[in-house]
């Protein structure tokens, strides 16, 4: 549906284009000069590829907050209550004989070490691992029938972010930035907020632009690590920096005079102006000192656990970015940690002690973010999507106290604009092993999120390598049952 983001001046004036179409090149140059005189090649036309663009139809949501828990959060110890699993604790799982999953053979069915309790008006059963998030039960819309195509973390992250297990495809945030541009004038359209412990396994590919233009890639920074290269190098004094930029501006303006109407050259001049504004606005948005004591406390900034406090600062940063009109935020909880549950939710060996560490880091700050978004009215036009790469087994791994990977069934949840509150859609079987009812996957979720943003997922495409590519590939369906 979208125009290709090539700029008008480029077709007419670039050197390669000129040489490759020598016969018409000179004519084009002459035409460009005439058009420039007429003002038809307005220098700023299309210069900003991030300018806000209208959706296909009236949107319910203006922006997206994705909360991504790296390492594969066990649905069976958080959101998906299975009485049968408690009843049959210690027994072999029926219907599967010597089931081998990612790390090997499985032992017996094992109940969650955390109690489940009814929450809110809906009485939704949620575990004691996430007590503060559980207080939001009446606002959440659970997708219990989620599935993934892979049982491996890297491809699983790719799948949940891009719709493909392979690398090289644009992330959902990049697609949304491409589709809608940004309402935040001096900030990136798409921001990825890495966890205080580090980046997820696939690193920047999780917020990559794939084959979309680089302008749509996620810009990664968090409350403790600013945007790369945002700051002037310490060895260059402020005054020297300013006069260098003045001289640069002078050079570029002189140069532009001899290339009138070249939108690409003016776009590049604008990009330096935006960079200068970003140097002012990005530190401002990251400066949490003006937040009230109550807000800081709500987010756990005073927590004795430095990771809770650091994730809390990231959550607060997310709210401040959403307030300023950033279109898409990917907020990460957990970092890359191969095969162990130390830095993320990959609880293979000791799920109890691992999750007792990870639960509190996520719970209070993420719950505070929901509370705060709701209190400020932001939840009315923001859609929130909590996810992880896949689920975990209802059995413990043979010889361990943890659960192996399970892409056959897991839970994600949504809340906010246009999404039913206190609602559950989809089911896994009686043990939580496989999705059996209202089965969904990443394509349905993103088709739905695009729908909420006013975009027809079938029409959002980008021509690459012979195909009009889509975020949802050849799949997807809007999950109408969860919409208000």
């Amino acid at each position, binding site marked *: 549906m979208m125009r290709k983001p090539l700029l008008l001046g480029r077709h007419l004036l670039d050197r390669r284009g000129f040489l490759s179409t020598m016969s018409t090149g000179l004519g084009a140059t002459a035409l460009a000069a005439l058009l420039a005189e007429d003002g038809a090649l307005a220098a700023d036309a299309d210069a900003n590829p991030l300018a806000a663009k209208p959706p296909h139809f009236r949107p319910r949501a203006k922006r997206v907050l994705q909360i991504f828990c790296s390492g594969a959060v066990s649905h069976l110890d958080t959101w998906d209550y299975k009485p049968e699993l408690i009843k049959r604790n210690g027994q072999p799982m029926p219907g599967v004989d010597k089931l081998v999953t990612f790390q090997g053979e499985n032992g017996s069915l094992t109940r969650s070490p955390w109690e489940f309790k009814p929450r809110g008006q809906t009485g939704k059963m949620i575990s004691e691992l996430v007590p503060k998030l559980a207080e939001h039960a009446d606002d959440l819309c659970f997708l219990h029938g989620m599935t993934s195509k892979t049982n491996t973390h890297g491809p699983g992250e790719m799948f949940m972010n891009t719709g493909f297990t392979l*690398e090289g495809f644009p992330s959902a945030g990049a697609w949304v930035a491409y589709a809608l541009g940004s309402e935040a004038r001096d900030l990136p359209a798409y921001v990825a907020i890495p966890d205080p412990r580090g980046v997820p396994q696939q690193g920047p590919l999780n917020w990559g632009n794939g084959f979309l233009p680089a302008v749509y890639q996620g810009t990664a920074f968090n409350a403790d690590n600013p*945007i790369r290269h945002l700051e002037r190098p310490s060895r260059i004094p402020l005054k020297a920096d300013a006069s260098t930029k003045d001289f640069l501006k002078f050079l570029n303006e002189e140069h532009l005079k001899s290339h009138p109407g070249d939108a690409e050259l003016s776009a590049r001049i604008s990009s330096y102006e935006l960079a200068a504004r970003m140097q002012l606005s990005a530190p401002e948005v990251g400066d949490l000192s003006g937040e009230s004591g109550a807000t800081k406390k709500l987010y756990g900034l005073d927590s004795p656990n430095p990771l809770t406090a650091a994730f809390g600062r990231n959550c607060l940063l997310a709210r401040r970015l959403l307030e300023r009109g950033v279109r898409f935020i990917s907020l990460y909880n957990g970092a890359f940690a191969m095969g162990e549950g130390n830095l993320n939710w990959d609880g293979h060996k000791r799920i109890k002690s691992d999750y007792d560490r990870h639960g509190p880091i996520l719970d209070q700050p993420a719950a505070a973010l929901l509370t705060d978004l709701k209190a400020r009215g932001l939840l009315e036009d923001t859609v929130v999507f909590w996810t992880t790469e896949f689920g975990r087994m209802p059995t413990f791994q043979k010889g361990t106290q943890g659960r192996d990977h399970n892409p056959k069934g897991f839970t994600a949840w949504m809340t906010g604009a246009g999404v039913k509150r206190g609602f559950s859609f989809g089911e896994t079987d009686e043990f939580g092993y496989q999705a059996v009812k209202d089965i969904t996957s990443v394509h349905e979720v993103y088709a739905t999120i695009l729908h909420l943003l006013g975009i027809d997922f079938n029409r959002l495409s980008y021509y690459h390598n012979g195909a009009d590519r889509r975020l949802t590939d050849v799949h997807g369906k809007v999950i109408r049952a969860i919409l208000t």
Partner: protein
Amino acid sequence: MIYQFKPRSQADPTFGAFDCPDASLVAPRRNVSTTALQALNLLNGSLLIDQSEQFAQRLNREVGNDPARQTRLAFRLAFGRAPNEFEAKQATVLIKTAGTPARARALFNANEFIYIP
């Protein structure tokens, strides 16, 4: 960039902001986008700052410390032409206040250096 050694699945920290194609997929045609992050990268990234300093040293080595001679050589090397009178004057003003690497930093960020229209 013409040749570069890179792991196939790793996003490049420098060229990633400049539409360096992801090596996981075939990219028959490179995207061209213009972003503020590219500007920040070229203004403040260590690659360009280091190169600016080395360029300043080279000018000094080749033509001594005369500002006008340096500026002429700098423009010839960076842009393939001599500076006009006004440019030469402005460049001299700049190096007086900001030092010789500043001149190179500006030239390397200039549209005339980045694009060959």
